[in-house]
């Protein structure tokens, strides 16, 4: 499923990515990795952006950017 579809409180792991390489490189530099769990913590008021916790870093992504990252849900 797409990362943007992860609901607040759900956890997942990275499956694969269709993200522009440049964006994914930044995310991996920030701690996103195939072995690190990703947890969706918050969603902003407009619903267009969600905050994800991975590798100890809390990062907010717009849904259209998170759409390019495929994850496998591990914990609801």
């Amino acid at each position, binding site marked *: 499923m797409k990362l943007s579809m992860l609901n607040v409180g759900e956890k997942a792991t990275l499956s694969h990515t269709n993200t*522009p*390489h*440049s*964006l*994914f*490189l*930044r*995310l*991996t*530099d*920030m*701690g*996103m*990795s*195939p*072995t*690190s769990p990703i947890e969706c*913590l*918050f*969603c*902003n*008021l*407009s*619903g*267009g*952006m969600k*905050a994800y*916790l991975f*590798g*100890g*870093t*809390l*990062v*907010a*992504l*717009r849904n259209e*950017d998170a759409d390019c990252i495929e994850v496998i849900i591990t914990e609801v």
Partner: protein
Amino acid sequence: MQNKPPSGKIVLAGNPNVGKSTLFNLLTGKKVHTGNWSGKTVAVSQGYGVHNQSTYIIEDIPGISSLTNPTAEEVAAFKAIASDSYDCLVIVADATNLTRSLAITLRILELTSRCMLFINLCDEAKKQGIQIDTKALSFILGIPVVASTARKKSSAALVMDAAESVIQGNVSPFVFTPLYSPETENALASFSYDRRETILHICLSGDSLLPLKVDMAERVATLSEKIERISVKKSNYTSKRLIDTLLCSHLCGIPLMLLGLFLILYITVFLSNYPSMLLSQMFSFISRLLVRLFDFLSVPELVTSVFIHGIYSTTATVVAVMLPPMAIFFPLFSILEESGILPRIAFNLDGAFKKCGSCGKQALTICMGLGCNCVGVTNSAIIASKRERLIAILTNSLTPCNGRFGAIIACISIFLSQGNGALTAFYMALVLAFSFLSTILASYILSKTLLKGTGTPFILELPPYRRVNVFKVAYSALRKNTPGILLRAVAISAPMGALISILNRFEWLLPIAKFLDPMGALLHLDGITLLAFILAFPANEIVFPIALMLYTQSGVMVSGFSHATLQMALTQNGWSAASAVSFIIFSLMHHPCSATVLTIKKETGSIKWTLASIILPLAMGVLFCLAFNALSQIFSV
């Protein structure tokens, strides 16, 4: 200290927001402003540090998130890291999130072995139950590792000892960690490690290089996690989640932010009244002394008029009105910065900015613009996309800075709230909401016309909250922002004061005001008010002092006048509640002050965009005032 030839150059590098500037301040004794959000440091700072009777050049470079794919503002940091210009690179890491710092450390180790690792924020890590085995880390990475906190004075000696050992070459042999796939590593085996990146860039084009980099970045992330598992015992981001649950919630997020803003403004406005009054009285006393001295020395009247009633009075007015609110607002705002709340504001407001073709980080530049538009414009550098950065710069002056607060509040207090403090603060909040909406509107117009373009990926890091040393942060903010802005305002006020005095002396001001009257009438203002806005180009603070000087024909500009004096002068000259609203609209939307214009020119490097930044708010102000005037005549306000 600076006279002794330096024994080496030490550069501080690392991810954004890990405490590089705090360490820089500790090593050099300087007071560079710090903040708890990514991208706070936008320029290189340089200072000197002394250790074991040797002097070292210490350089603080902007934080960098990705060495593989640096953004425009990270390129300078990347070049500094990849260069040969230093003797030791201190990689500053965050103990509470070591995985990320290790990722960049591994990438830096691919470029240079002249480095050491300083793990900062160990006090906070300890509170979170994180323990770091520095010996194991040093063994794995092959570089000196020091763990402490940059806020502790004793850390300076630990860092400098380790840096000195790197400079003197007393370090263990370089341990190379393969980062690329085995095939790529085999292909690169015949080259020295510091030339690998260059070779890759020469051999592969951008499209074929990127998948390789992605593969490498994943390896680095996995490797960082492995190293962290060996050397760190931890439990992470849990305790501060409650604050985020409140600040980022749909129900409480925006109201809490508005409440915080309201409190900051309330404290700023009401606390600054008393010191402003005292300063004004002191300057008036000095003015009287100077007049007596000039009389005693038989100085010609024209000189007395230009120097005392012109240069001195204008400068004193600017200082008396500008200094107290600045001295209160900047420290209060810095506490917000340091705590880590600002990026949450960007998170909450991103939806609105996205709709107008910008991003949530513009909300941060707006917040800074409330203190001073120059600061807001300079800090637009935190926005990665050039198009979105220009939108933030061009619209920043639509946010009322401290300098405009005084006049707006006086108008509200006299004509709308009749002196009721809470009602004044409420109307002020409405004015700010209007200013925010006009910024959104201007951003939308720009993104559909002059600055058309598609949105770029937006990554917003939400840093962990930090305990704030209130007094230290407040003092640092006061030292950093206030003198510079005040000096800039004074430098422009003095010649403008002389000009006003000469124009007044030869009685040219009133004819000019009369000439502007018809234009003012269209905007529900008068010629004197329009002329005051023009002459207040050096600093927005002096709009009312100039208007008052012209209304009363006193020939002397004074600050610290009471609302009663102002009310009398304004009502006697035909002001009504509608004139006050028109004044507030025009005060929100007119040309930026001279210091902001100079800053915009410096940041954009373009006369075209500088002119656009003047014309845009002015055109909006004229249109809004015309519309309000028409409406007020229809409804006979």
